[in-house]
C-alpha cells in the first residue's frame, strides 16, 4: 500500500525538525518540500490557512499543521517504535514536559535572542530557571524518554543544537556544563544519535541566520 507522506519545511525550522525526527525514527518514507517563508507557496497557504507556517505534514492528501499536533498524529498513525509511554499517567507527564518546553523554555530563549537590555536579562534569567527544572526532570535518566528517545526528547531537541548557536550569536551562556551536567550530557547524547545527527542544518548557516535576525530586530527598536 503506497502511502503518500510529505513534509513542508524550511532548511532551518526547529519545529519542522521534530517532524523529520519522528518520521525518521519510525522509518517512514516521505517527500520533503522546502518552503521560502518570504514567498509562501499556494500549497502551504492551502494546507495551513490558519497559521500559514511550517511544518505541515501531508498524509494521503490530508494536511496536519502545528508540530506537536503532527507528532501526536504520527504516534497515533504509525504505532510501532512508540514515542509516548503506554501508561496514561506517564503519558500525561510526557505531555506536561512537552508543554513546559513550549510555554516556558522556548519563549525565554527566543526572547533572549530578540530583546535587549533589561528585557533580555529577564528572558535569560527565565531561561536558566527553566533549565533548572529540566535538569531535575533528567535525574536518573539518560533521555527524557528513559532509555530511548521519546516525544519529550524530540520536542526539546532544538536545545541540542540551537543553544550553542545562540551562545555564539549572543555571547551569552545558557547551559553551563557545571551548572547543568545532566542537561549538557543529554544534549550531547541526543545530538549524536545517528537519526538526529544526519538532519542538523549546517551550523555556520544557522549562526549567520540568527545574527541577521537579531540585527534586524534591534534595528526596528
Amino acid at each position, binding site marked *: 500500500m503506497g502511502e503518500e507522506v510529505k513534509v513542508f519545511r524550511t532548511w532551518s525550522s526547529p519545529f519542522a525538525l521534530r517532524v523529520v525526527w519522528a518520521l525518521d525514527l519510525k522509518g517512514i518514507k516521505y517527500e520533503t518540500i522546502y518552503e521560502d517563508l518570504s514567498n509562501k507557496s499556494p500549497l502551504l497557504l492551502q494546507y495551513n490557512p*490558519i497559521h500559514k507556517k511550517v511544518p505541515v505534514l501531508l*498524509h494521503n492528501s*490530508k494536511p*496536519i*499543521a*502545528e508540530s*506537536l*499536533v*503532527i507528532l*501526536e*498524529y504520527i504516534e*497515533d*498513525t504509525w504505532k510501532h517504535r512508540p514515542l509516548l509511554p503506554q501508561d*496514561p*499517567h506517564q*503519558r*500525561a507527564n510526557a*505531555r*506536561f514536559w512537552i*508543554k*513546559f518546553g513550549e510555554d516556558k523554555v522556548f519563549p525565554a530563549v527566543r526572547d533572549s535572542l530578540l530583546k535587549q537590555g533589561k528585557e533580555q536579562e529577564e528572558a535569560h534569567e527565565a531561561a536558566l530557571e527553566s533549565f533548572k*527544572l529540566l535538569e531535575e526532570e533528567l535525574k536518573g535518566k539518560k533521555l527524557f524518554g528513559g532509555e530511548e528517545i521519546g516525544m519529550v526528547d524530540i520536542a526539546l531537541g532544538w536545545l541540542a543544537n540551537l543553544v550553542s548557536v545562540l551562545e555564539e550569536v549572543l555571547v551569552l551562556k545558557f547551559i553551563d556544563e557545571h551548572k547543568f551536567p545532566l542537561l549538557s550530557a543529554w544534549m550531547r547524547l541526543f545530538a549524536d544519535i545517528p537519526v538526529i545527527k544526519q538532519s542538523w542544518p549546517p551550523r555556520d548557516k544557522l549562526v549567520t541566520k540568527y545574527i541577521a535576525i537579531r540585527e534586524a530586530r534591534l534595528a526596528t527598536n
Partner: protein
Amino acid sequence: MADEVILLDLWSSMFGMRVRVALAEKGIEYEYKEQDLRNKSPLLLEMNPIHKKIPVLIHNGKPICESLIIVQYIDEVWHHKAPLLPSDPYQRAQARFWADYVDKKVYAPGRKIWATKGDEQEEAKKEFIEILKVLEGELGEKPYFGGESFGFVDISFVTFSCWFHVYETFGNFSIEKECPKLMAWVKRCQERESVFKSLPDEKKVLEFVYFLKKIFGIE
C-alpha cells in the same frame, strides 16, 4: 477498588471548568477542593510544584496538571464511556489543532478586554472578535466542533462562554451579533448537564471581575 479522584480548582477558572465538564461527561465521582490562589494550599504546592496553578487532578494520589492534558488523561483512563476525542487519527489531529488554537488565542485578548482600556482595549476587542469568527468558521454547520458528538474542542472552548458576559459588558459589544452561529452552539452546549452543572452563572463571574478590578486597582 474504588478510584480516588480529587480536583483542585477555582470556581471561576475556565480552565478548571474544562476538567469539571470532562469528569461529568464520563460520570466520574470526585471530590472538588476550592483553592485560594492568594494563599496556596500545601496540597496544591505539593501536587503542582512547577506551576503552582489550578486545575490539578489527583487520581489515586498521582497528580496531573494542565487542563487539556488532564482532559486527555480522563479520556484515556475512562475510555469505555463518552469518548471525548475521535478514534480516527486525522480527526484527532484536527481536534488537537483546534483545542490548541483556543488555548493559544482566546484567553489573552479576552482578559485585556476587561483589564485594560482605551486603544489597548479596542485592539484586544478586535482581535477577540476575529478569533471568534475563525472558530465560528470552523464550526460551520456542524452541531458541535467534533461533528455530531460533543467533544474535546467543544470542552476546550465552551468554558469561556460564562465569561462572554464579562467581555461584552466591558468591551461594549454583542457576541450574539458578531457570531450568531457560535452563540447557537453555546446554547446547545449549555443544554448538556455536564456543561450547565460545571459552569458558574455569568452574573457571578461579572461580579467577580468587578471585585478583581477593585482589589488590583484596575479602573
